[in-house]
């Protein structure tokens, strides 16, 4: 599937459907709660269902890992939470509650005011969120002054302090450098400094280390972990690297073709996964920590087009167990249901059968 974006339709505003009234606010523990989130893009080729019904909750001080292949809707989900779809023509449905306020139904101005202090994001590509014509320091200072009434001098001191904390050597000098004068790893760290300038309560990190070497990645992950501890922030860590998830996340959400297929505590997801797609991801992994005795067990084929998803279970075209479902996989979208407290999966296959497959067929071959 080519990753080219189909051209956007022009007259989308008129078609935007009315939002249903939001449900009751979530319990106070859930700093972030996403309910039935949908993000669709009308294009000339058809409606791209990038996110098609995702829900999860996240508390302060906790880290949620979101994994899935490229194009599964991870970034689109985070941009929806941040209110950054702007004029992309995105049609957003469902509810996003941040500390008791519903964002889908808020005005862009209201959401803008929450960015920075309430929530901040680290992007996949540091250059996309840094302006090449301004010094690194200038950009951090600006982000800081949006929410804090401080003098230029105080803001500068704060910026130098932050750069030092993210491990930039000689921050008092480097603060006046332009982004291109930084190495890839330093730019990523500077962007983290920018995202952290107002001690955000929710930090969304979208593949923050994908482009970096492992030694730099280790430094950055450490940094995120430390800062989370210090501020008790909620963190959403988006990645396709199951190693990063295992290292950082308390809970994991596995996405496939715009939907959540499995969600649960990190240990459970790695030790008792109950969705064939999650098995496929684990079966595909080359491992540093041990020799895999047998061949890898890849998932066959490639992800489907989001414009014409397979009916029923979107994974059925690649699922080795698709014919175990009496045809339901073709007619019914499997709902994300709780199979044990805190562990949800979206699959029609009988749960005892899934337990058996995992213990007998999959786990021994990993």
């Amino acid at each position, binding site marked *: 599937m080519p990753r080219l974006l189909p051209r956007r339709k022009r007259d989308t505003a008129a078609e935007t459907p009315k939002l249903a009234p939001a449900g009751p606010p979530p319990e106070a523990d859930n700093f972030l709660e996403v309910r039935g989130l949908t993000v669709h893009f009308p294009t000339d080729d058809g409606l791209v269902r990038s996110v098609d019904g995702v829900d999860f909750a996240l508390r302060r001080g906790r880290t949620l890992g979101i994994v899935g292949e490229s194009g599964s809707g991870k970034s689109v989900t985070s941009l929806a939470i941040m209110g950054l779809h702007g004029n992309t023509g995105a049609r957003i449905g469902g509810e996003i509650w941040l500390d008791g306020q519903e964002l889908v139904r808020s005005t862009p101005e209201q959401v803008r005011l929450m960015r920075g202090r309430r929530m901040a994001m680290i992007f996949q590509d540091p250059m996309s969120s840094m302006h090449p014509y301004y010094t690194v320091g200038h950009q951090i200072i600006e982000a800081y002054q949006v929410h804090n009434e401080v003098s230029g001098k105080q803001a500068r001191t704060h910026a130098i302090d932050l750069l030092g904390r993210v491990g930039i050597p000689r921050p008092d000098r480097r603060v006046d450098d332009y982004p291109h004068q930084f190495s890839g790893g330093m730019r990523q760290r500077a962007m983290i400094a920018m995202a952290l300038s107002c001690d955000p309560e929710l930090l969304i990190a979208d593949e923050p280390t994908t482009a970096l*070497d492992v*030694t730099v990645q280790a430094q950055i992950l*450490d940094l995120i972990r430390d800062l989370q501890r210090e501020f008790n922030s909620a963190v959403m860590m988006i990645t396709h690297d199951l190693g990063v998830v295992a290292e950082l996340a308390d809970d994991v959400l596995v996405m496939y073709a715009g939907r959540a297929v499995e969600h649960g505590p990190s240990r459970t997801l790695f030790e008792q996964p109950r969705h064939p797609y999650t098995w*496929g991801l684990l079966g*595909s992994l*080359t*491992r*540093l920590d041990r020799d895999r005795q047998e061949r*890898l067990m890849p998932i066959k084929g490639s992800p489907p087009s989001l414009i014409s998803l397979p009916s029923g279970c979107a994974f059925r075209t690649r699922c080795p167990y698709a014919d175990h479902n009496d045809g339901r996989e073709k007619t019914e979208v499997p709902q994300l249901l709780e199979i044990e407290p805190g562990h949800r999966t979206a699959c029609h296959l009988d749960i005892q059968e899934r337990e058996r497959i995992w213990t007998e067929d999959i786990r021994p071959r990993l």
Partner: protein
Amino acid sequence: MTEGARAGDDVKAAQAAEGAADSPDVRERDVLVRVRGLRKHFPIRSGVTRRRAGAVKAVDGLDFDIREGETLGLVGESGCGKSTTGRMVMRLLEPTEGTIEFGGRDITGLSRGQLRPLRRDFQMIFQDPQSSLNPRHTVGTIVGLPFRLQKVTPEGGIKKAVQELLELVGLSPEHYNRYPHEFSGGQRQRIGIARALALRPKLVVADEPVSALDVSIQAQVVNLLDDLQNEFGLTYLIIAHDLSVVRHTSDRVAVMYLGKIVEIADREDLYSSPKHPYTVALMSAVPVPDPARRETRERILLKGDVPSPMDPPPACRFHTRCWKVQDICKTQEPPLAEITGRHQVACHFPENVPAGEGGAVEVVELVKPGAAADVDAAAAGVAEASVTDVDASGAEAADADAGGPTDVAEPKDTPPTSAP
């Protein structure tokens, strides 16, 4: 200090015998590629006059062999010279210095014309399946190109041969008339592999063959490379920054840092007992997909960034970031020397050295009236050996040991670890 001086001849012979006992088949196989003293310095020019202002020492003296049917993995961080090495082995790039032998023949000085008949024996797979395929050509044209370039007509014609190749790599013969943009990343990589295999090469150099792909697709391509190797007895040089992929695909692994090989060993040896501090740090930085281990795992955090290859640190290039650095590391370059059978390391104070073997080296070294610095180095190596022997974190115990009979520089520090 030469290799011979470091390990006495007897020791070496014993090790050779041991290595042979381990894996007779690999050891006795013929060497297909032999690289000696390979260097590539890219001149940097500055100003309007384009005056030569220095050089990027991208590759700065490599020695390695690849045996027939074996896979050598080349790992290291971005910019350490992996691709430059691969391109020189392919003779796509002129070395500044050194020799490359292919099947016993020195191909370094060969002209384009002399090289042409040999070209079919070595082929390359590239990192980015998107940009390595001409978007205006059909799959048929792309995969059939090597036949046309080499003026080879396969039995049954080019079209039939191409369709067979497509099937071989898991595509369908009907894809013959399609264009690259109609395929997914994984499928495009398969097209690149089909093209590389067209002329049944002996050596395939694969530069980051899976790093642009999703994990599920990576696994498909890794399995495919594996199958093809078994079927055609291919020899691979696999270049990758991902240590897990290299562990899975390679028989032997070379670790590069700033243009040099710092460690080279058989796969099992390297992963079970890495000896160069850089290798140890690199491995400890890889996140492991096992949440149960995250509390107990020790990670070594390296300080700072990799220095510029224009102005690499003198002597041991890793000394600016190494937690074991001593004075000698800044003045004497550690040679790439064999410590145990087939395991070579370039470090004055290697990790994970079995006490027995380290001891043997020391005895040989100390009785010899050699240069004082050499003695220091070997002896300190022993001190270090006892460190690892006790416990990687038992710094005090190690200091006590080191202060004993040899009385040499003690290990300065334990690694700056972080256990979350």
